[in-house]
């Protein structure tokens, strides 16, 4: 068993609100230099830079989980973390079909798709800042149907969080974990595993908050065991 340090919420230059410096190569390099063992790429309503990040990270011995930060129709941000590329692609297809409108790069920012050498492949024209048609419950259900892990994002934030939009963590919602980006745990989240993540939109933010896991390997399956405290795996600093 070993201790891993994970930052499970990092944006890339695909997110309109992220800095253009957040290319896969640059963010992987930064993640390594701040001592992270595992990261998850979670762009807004899209996952087109996951593959590039995974390829860069392979060379550096950093593990990457493919994910997405989905905006529900109540404008709650929910992270979906997925076991493989097939599930990531499935999530992207579902979410893009439920997301309407075109991005205005001047108002919201560019949405760049790049390869593992930071070469520009293209732009997404989808309005990634928008909300999907999926309710909170449907979003969690879709993530689970793809075999993924559903996390209520930054519940200690005043906007776009389960707490800001609903006011509490609904006890019957089958979330797998809640995420903090500062350090304030609302009382109603008690009982769910707590992840601490950066929600980095610029390089310097990567790893500013992170979660330590005691696990066998840097895989999502191992993290799921740690969420449940099974087989000796656990989240440290809970």
């Amino acid at each position, binding site marked *: 068993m070993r201790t891993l340090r994970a930052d499970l919420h990092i944006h890339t230059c695909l997110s309109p*609100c992220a800095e253009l410096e957040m290319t896969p190569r640059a963010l992987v390099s930064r993640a390594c230099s701040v001592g992270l063992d595992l990261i998850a790429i979670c762009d807004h309503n899209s996952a087109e830079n996951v593959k590039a990040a995974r390829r860069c990270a392979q060379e550096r011995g950093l593990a990457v989980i493919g994910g997405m930060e989905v905006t529900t129709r109540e404008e709650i941000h929910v992270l979906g973390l997925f076991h493989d590329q097939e599930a990531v692609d499935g999530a992207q297809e579902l979410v893009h079909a439920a997301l309407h409108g075109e991005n205005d790069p001047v*108002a*919201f920012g560019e949405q760049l798709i790049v390869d593992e050498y930071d070469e520009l492949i293209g732009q997404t024209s989808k309005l990634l800042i928008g*909300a999907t048609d999926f309710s909170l419950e449907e979003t969690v259900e879709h993530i689970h149907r793809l075999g993924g892990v559903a996390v209520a994002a930054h519940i200690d934030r005043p906007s776009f969080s389960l707490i800001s939009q609903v006011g509490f963590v609904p006890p019957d919602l089958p979330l797998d974990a809640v995420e903090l980006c500062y350090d304030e745990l609302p009382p109603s989240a008690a009982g769910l595993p707590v992840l601490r993540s950066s929600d980095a939109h610029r390089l310097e933010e990567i790893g500013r908050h992170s979660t330590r896991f005691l696990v066998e390997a840097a895989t999502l399956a191992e993290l799921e065991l740690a969420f449940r405290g099974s087989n000796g795996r656990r989240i440290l600093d809970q």
Partner: protein
Amino acid sequence: MNLQQIVNELALQVRSGRSALNREVRRGYASDLMSDVIAHGQEGDLWVTLHGHQNVVAVAAMKELAAVVLVNGREPEPDTLAKAGEQGLPLLVSELPAFELIGRLHRLGLRGIAG
């Protein structure tokens, strides 16, 4: 109706975009969901919301809204203020809750989409 007039009548605090207070306000719209304002906001609207997030500025720019009023004394987040300053968007703050503020705007003669 002129924005400056609204600011004066309802004692709104101006947090950014002071040089754009001569703008004409055409209608009012109230919502706390960005996607709803993207769908229904119209050019020249005064947007009443409790949202202080920076996306408010982006949505206001995209829809060419006249100004944004935050209710209940909510203050814009620092990033929001910086963006609004860059874009010259008037960001206003009212101490009143949304219901009371909208009632007073209506009394001043400001109308919404439905007239």
